[in-house]
């Protein structure tokens, strides 16, 4: 793949990468005949952002028809390259298959040429089965009004709840009926339907999603000056935020929303639900020059200040993301537990080469039986209680789950659970003296 673009368009791509960098740690690049696509998802895999640039966005665009058109690179590397775009007049991007590197060249003012080579971490791609047309509710508004909504809340606020009905929209930072700690300040903002460009809500609902990813896309919409559309259904179903500029740029942010039943479950149970739905395959490259890199589902980095669970799940059991090698084979029977790579970024100041080395970890194959990835992932989650207040929530109203799973769950946990007292730590009865 080879393409080149003008300075202003390169600046737009830089802004899109900065937007993705706010929540993602890896950048997936895919080029096909229609255009270039940049994708990333957050560490808990509950949000995925996509930027599509049509081929007319580029000054020249060449794509070969074989497989070497997508790659995955580290986000830090991409961000470092697309940092100072003031002087850039032209930009050339191409994927070099041998060695596997992404080459970015900037022609800057005063005859300067900046050349950067990023090592491609892996060749894989994500596709998502979530489509926009299925969503019932649609909200279209200018970036200004969403900016107002976002500014109403504290920058540290983790989530936002939008309650929509035919009368209007209420944006809150809490969920009705959930217990919060004493020092929690609640805010809400009520807007009338007139303020939106298009307000089409056939189904009343209240959805909760993460504010961090929303804000990063909001800043991109502000830089483009375009409207934002929100497509959503009901609590638990994913919400899709789209930004479109003419025909050239299309951006999607797919986020999972809080499932309405699980409002007061402890935080540990979150990861299990997410990982159950993951279906992951890794492409074996034609040339065996690269080692496989496997990623394990990472622990949630985002810990909310209150004991709301963030169980993100989809109602009809489809995965939010699917990793696949080529678009056709999405039901591979292998489920891998993937471990996150720790990439070492070495900066060579002279030539501005960035070399990423991926630590290859062994593939671990698990049978896809009833337990799936759930219990394994539970083992991997680190029990970090970093001094956060354990708020005891009220008894959750769970639905009936099968007794079998509840009976056997403990077998698949780590033997040593931090919350249970260690048999050696506490002395219940001191040794009695034999004197008496």
């Amino acid at each position, binding site marked *: 793949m080879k393409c080149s673009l003008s300075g202003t368009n390169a600046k737009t791509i830089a802004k899109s990468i900065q937007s993705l960098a706010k929540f993602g740690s890896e950048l997936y690049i895919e080029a096909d005949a229609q255009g270039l696509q940049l994708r990333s998802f957050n560490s808990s895999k509950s949000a995925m952002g996509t930027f599509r640039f049509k081929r007319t966005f580029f000054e020249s665009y060449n794509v070969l028809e074989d497989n070497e058109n997508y790659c995955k690179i580290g986000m830090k590397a991409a961000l470092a390259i697309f940092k100072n775009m003031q002087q850039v007049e032209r930009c050339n991007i191409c994927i070099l298959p041998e060695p596997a590197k992404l080459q970015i060249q900037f022609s800057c003012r005063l005859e300067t040429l900046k050349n950067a080579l990023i090592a491609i971490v892996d060749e894989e791609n994500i596709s998502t089965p979530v489509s926009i047309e299925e969503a019932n509710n649609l909200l279209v508004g200018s970036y200004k009004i969403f900016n*107002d909504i976002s500014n109403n809340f504290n920058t540290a606020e983790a989530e936002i709840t939008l309650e929509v009905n035919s009368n209007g929209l209420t944006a809150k930072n809490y969920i009705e009926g959930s217990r919060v700690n004493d*020092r929690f300040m*609640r805010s809400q*903002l009520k807007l009338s339907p007139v*303020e939106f460009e298009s307000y089409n809500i056939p189904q009343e609902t209240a959805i909760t999603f993460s504010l961090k990813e929303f804000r990063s896309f909001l800043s991109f919409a502000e830089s483009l000056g375009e409207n934002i559309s929100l497509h959503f259904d009901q609590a638990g179903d994913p919400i899709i935020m789209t930004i479109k500029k003419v025909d050239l740029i299309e951006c999607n942010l797919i986020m999972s929303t809080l499932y309405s039943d699980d409002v007061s479950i402890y935080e540990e149970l979150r990861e299990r639900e997410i990982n159950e739905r993951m279906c992951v395959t890794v492409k074996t490259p034609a040339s065996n020059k690269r080692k496989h890199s496997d990623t394990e589902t990472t622990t949630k980095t985002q810990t909310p200040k209150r004991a709301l669970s963030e169980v993100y799940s989809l109602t009809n059991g489809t995965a939010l993301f699917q990793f696949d090698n080529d678009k056709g084979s999405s039901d591979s029977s292998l489920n891998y537990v993937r471990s996150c790579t720790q990439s070492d970024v070495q900066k060579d100041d002279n030539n501005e080469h960035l070399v990423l080395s991926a630590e290859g970890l062994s593939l671990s194959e698990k049978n896809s039986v009833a337990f799936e990835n759930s219990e394994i992932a539970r083992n991997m989650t680190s029990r970090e209680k970093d001094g956060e207040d354990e708020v005891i929530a009220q008894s959750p109203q769970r639905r009936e789950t099968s007794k079998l799973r509840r009976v056997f769950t403990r077998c698949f946990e780590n033997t040593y659970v931090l919350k249970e007292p260690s048999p050696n730590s506490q002395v219940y009865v001191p040794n009695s003296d034999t004197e008496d």
Partner: protein
Amino acid sequence: MKFCAKIDDGQYMREFQNIVLTLSKLTKECVIIIKKDKVHFIANEESGAAAPLVWVEIDAKLYFTNYIMEGHSDDNGSTIMLAVSPIHFSRALSSFKLNARNCKFKLIHLQFPCLRTETEVLSQSSGEPRQIVHDVPVTLIPRNEWDYYDLPQIPRAKLIVKVHSNNLLRGLIDKLKNISPTLKFAANSLGDLNLVAKNEMATITTCFKNLEVRTLDDESQQEDIKVECSVDCKKTSLFFTALQVPTSELSCGIDDDRLIHMEINVRGGVSVHSILPSVCV
């Protein structure tokens, strides 16, 4: 216990917001005393170790239309005392800047007692009214602690000097705090105010001349009354930098070697007071 108040005027709302902003820069927790006809804010000396004692007096009828309160009765009439974090409160009032039309305060109890601020704003883009509601958590102060929060009396200062504006003083005191830990205010009845900062190497004196002077003592009509008082420079600097209210009416009352009392009259009926105790040089 009931409290319900409404502010209709945009200017009053902004002044109220400025007062709360001032308090938020001084301390992490302040006490609101709601009486039948007045609302007081007290920023305690203990809560912010470096902050001076500041209290605000607001005439309820002036700011609030539709003021309803019902609290515990004691000798002075019905009173409600709340402890609130001014930082949270100022965040709740931040929407006042955006073209707010009116706002309502209510004391409610959801899972814990809160002060609810309902603000109606007009959005710039479409002109539609929007409602913004913030619930600020408060703690009710029990009856047996009320004596602790008695309002300080305005001290009798021999000489009260009116300073023109805060800007000069703020920058000056900010720089003087690096010179010396104590600052001396010296004034005389001719309208001179001197700020003196002294360390081993240098003495820096700033002279303000021709300031308005008021004396409290009616008997002594002497020509020359000289008063001076040394105060902690950091506390003074904190007070001046925190001020967000317009300070055209700032007066310093100096009680010879005892304390300095600052008073800012935002408007008739609304005033911000502070007491800086003197320190030994």
